[in-house]
């Protein structure tokens, strides 16, 4: 023993210390390390979160730049997902506006603005079922429209059908249905893009006036409201007869879509099965939801558009993640001594990991909220400029929040690796 010990006996030290008795029994007064009780949820999560918040708050400029980064990512993802969903919504808007329960379509039709023809006789055959009340042929094509103001030409979607059958419903259609029965009368979609001319104003000033569609002068007899889609910038509705008059190359015996109205109370699924049985395989029988889904699938799979917006979202998330990672990483790097000190006084790696994670999630919330608010406004602006149906939905808000949350969590996990460098042994 190379230590000359002077027993540091203190009046309040209850046991005798001496090196002569190293094997002495357990000394009762030895300060016993406090036994940690099972940590509650508060200590497990709220205390690290509070520490994280205090640390973030201490450096305003850095916090602000982190929030801006998350906000940027949130806005980017919101816009990309918004465009994506607006595309799908608007692409199917025309079909979604049709009010029939069942539809007949050529199985080769991939998308409504490029329809394959089906025999018109199938509409009449469908009437064989007692539960079918109406079977209305719908004609779809695109033609050039000459802007009545400046003469420029642009492709417009033409929709021809029995305007009084009630199989289709567009805003304003009922009011102009009688006018559409006139020869060469068309109804113009006021929500078409402005490049078609300010038809609504002209109509209000002049009443019905002549416009050129294809190579034909037709009468603009009224206004409806449908809305443009990626496939068509504007819409014209007209009666079936006028459609055939204007699109002469079409065979009268062919149509593009048949809308079937069932009698009230009829079982749609049963009617769909029976129609499949009696109709030849040159038509498919779809419910309204299936028709819309079919159209949507085209945009999702057969075009790169869905992918592009998905990719844009991922880019936004990656940029946001890098920003958050940078902030968290430099926060840890700058406070390495403090983290090491905390480790030295008994904080576990897990506790400090929760601090970093809490910081990441605080940034997620703080960046997301202004991002969502900004996007609500941006949606209005963009919807006004593009006439696309952009709106802040609860569903999308939840999705984007989940993505931003995940993004920040991933950044936090990456930044946590830096915690290993905080070695308490280097503190002395």
């Amino acid at each position, binding site marked *: *023993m*190379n*230590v*000359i*010990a*002077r*027993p*540091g*006996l*203190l009046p*309040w*030290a209850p*046991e005798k*210390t001496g*090196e002569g008795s*190293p094997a*002495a029994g*357990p*000394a009762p*007064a*030895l*300060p*016993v*390390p*406090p036994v*940690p*009780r*099972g*940590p*509650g949820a*508060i*200590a*497990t999560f709220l*205390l690290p979160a509070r*520490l994280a918040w*205090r*640390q973030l*708050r*201490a*450096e305003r400029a850095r916090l602000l730049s982190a929030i801006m980064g998350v906000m940027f990512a949130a806005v980017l993802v919101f816009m990309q997902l918004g465009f994506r969903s607006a595309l799908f919504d608007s692409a199917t808007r025309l079909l979604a506006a049709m009010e029939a329960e069942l539809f007949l379509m050529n199985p080769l039709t991939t998308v409504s603005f490029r329809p394959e023809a089906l025999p018109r006789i199938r509409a009449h055959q469908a009437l064989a079922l007692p539960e079918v009340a109406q079977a209305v042929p719908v004609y779809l094509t695109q033609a050039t429209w000459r802007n009545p103001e400046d003469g420029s030409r642009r492709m417009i979607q033409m929709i021809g059908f029995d305007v009084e059958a009630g199989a289709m419903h567009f805003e304003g259609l009922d009011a102009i249905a009688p006018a559409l029965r006139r020869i060469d009368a068309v109804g113009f979609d006021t929500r078409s893009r402005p490049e078609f001319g300010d038809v609504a104003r002209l109509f209000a000033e002049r009443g019905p006036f002549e416009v050129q569609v294809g190579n034909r002068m037709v009468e603009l007899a009224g206004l409806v409201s449908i809305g443009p889609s990626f496939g068509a910038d504007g819409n014209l509705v007209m009666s079936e007869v006028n459609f055939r008059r204007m699109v002469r190359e079409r065979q009268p015996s062919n149509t593009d879509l048949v809308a079937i109205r069932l009698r009230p109370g009829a079982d749609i699924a049963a009617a769909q099965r029976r129609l499949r049985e009696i109709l030849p395989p040159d038509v498919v029988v779809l419910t309204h939801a299936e028709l819309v889904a079919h159209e949507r699938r085209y945009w999702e799979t057969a075009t790169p558009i869905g992918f592009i917006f998905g990719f844009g979202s991922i880019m936004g998330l990656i940029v946001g993640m890098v920003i958050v990672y940078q902030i968290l990483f430099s926060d840890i790097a700058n*406070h390495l*001594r*403090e983290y*090491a*000190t*905390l*480790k*030295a*006084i*008994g*904080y*576990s*790696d897990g*506790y400090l990991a929760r601090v970093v994670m809490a910081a990441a999630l605080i940034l997620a919330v703080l960046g997301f909220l202004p991002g969502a608010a900004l996007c609500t406004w941006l949606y209005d602006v963009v919807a006004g400029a593009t006439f696309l149906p952009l709106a802040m939905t609860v569903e999308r808000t939840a999705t984007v929040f989940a993505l931003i949350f995940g993004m920040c969590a991933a950044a936090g996990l990456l930044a946590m690796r830096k915690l290993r460098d905080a070695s*308490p*042994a280097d*503190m*002395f």
Partner: protein
Amino acid sequence: MDPIRIAGLTFAYGEGELRRPVLRDIALQVHAGEVVLLTGPSGSGKTTLLTLIGALRAMQEGSCQVLGRELMGANERERVRLRRSIGFIFQNHNLLGFLTARQNVAMALEIDAAISERERLERAGAMLAAVGLSGQEDKLPAKLSGGQRQRVAIARALVAGPGLVLADEPTAALDKVSGGEVAHLLRDMAKSRGTPILMVTHDPRILDIADRVVAMEDGRIVEAAAA
């Protein structure tokens, strides 16, 4: 039982040819309530010894019992647990810059979930008053003088009622007057609680606080003298 009982402790940095032993066959005991100063030239291994006793490093050889726990072979989890019963005072105060003095002291209590927030802050405030910092509780470390910061560090080390205090040159960054004050304060606080102190120091001005001075050189204890 002594708070620190070390026997046959040997420690080396590096591997293979680069292996450089820093501690050789150390034996040391610190008794309950005793203030022991560890001195010696740079590189004599005293800081390494302190980190081993503080469970900040894994042991390699020998036996080191701290507060009744054997550290040889202890895993990280056991070491983290033991650290909670030790009060650390560093050369630099190492206070968290974004927390007030009171919050810094309370950090030493936040590990224990059984203590309420109010009790934490009260105990922290009482401890700050005990080190002579009444009225400074809500200042950030940047607003305090060097001596005041080290007092906060002492309060943080003692507030949880540790079984042992380890200090590494706590007066190195302070001038003579405040260094002496801090050293005596630390000793008085520890003595009144019966807490043993093991302090590494170069500072001859504070040798008078020691019950015993242990000198190290080249990884060995060369001399131990009563102060």
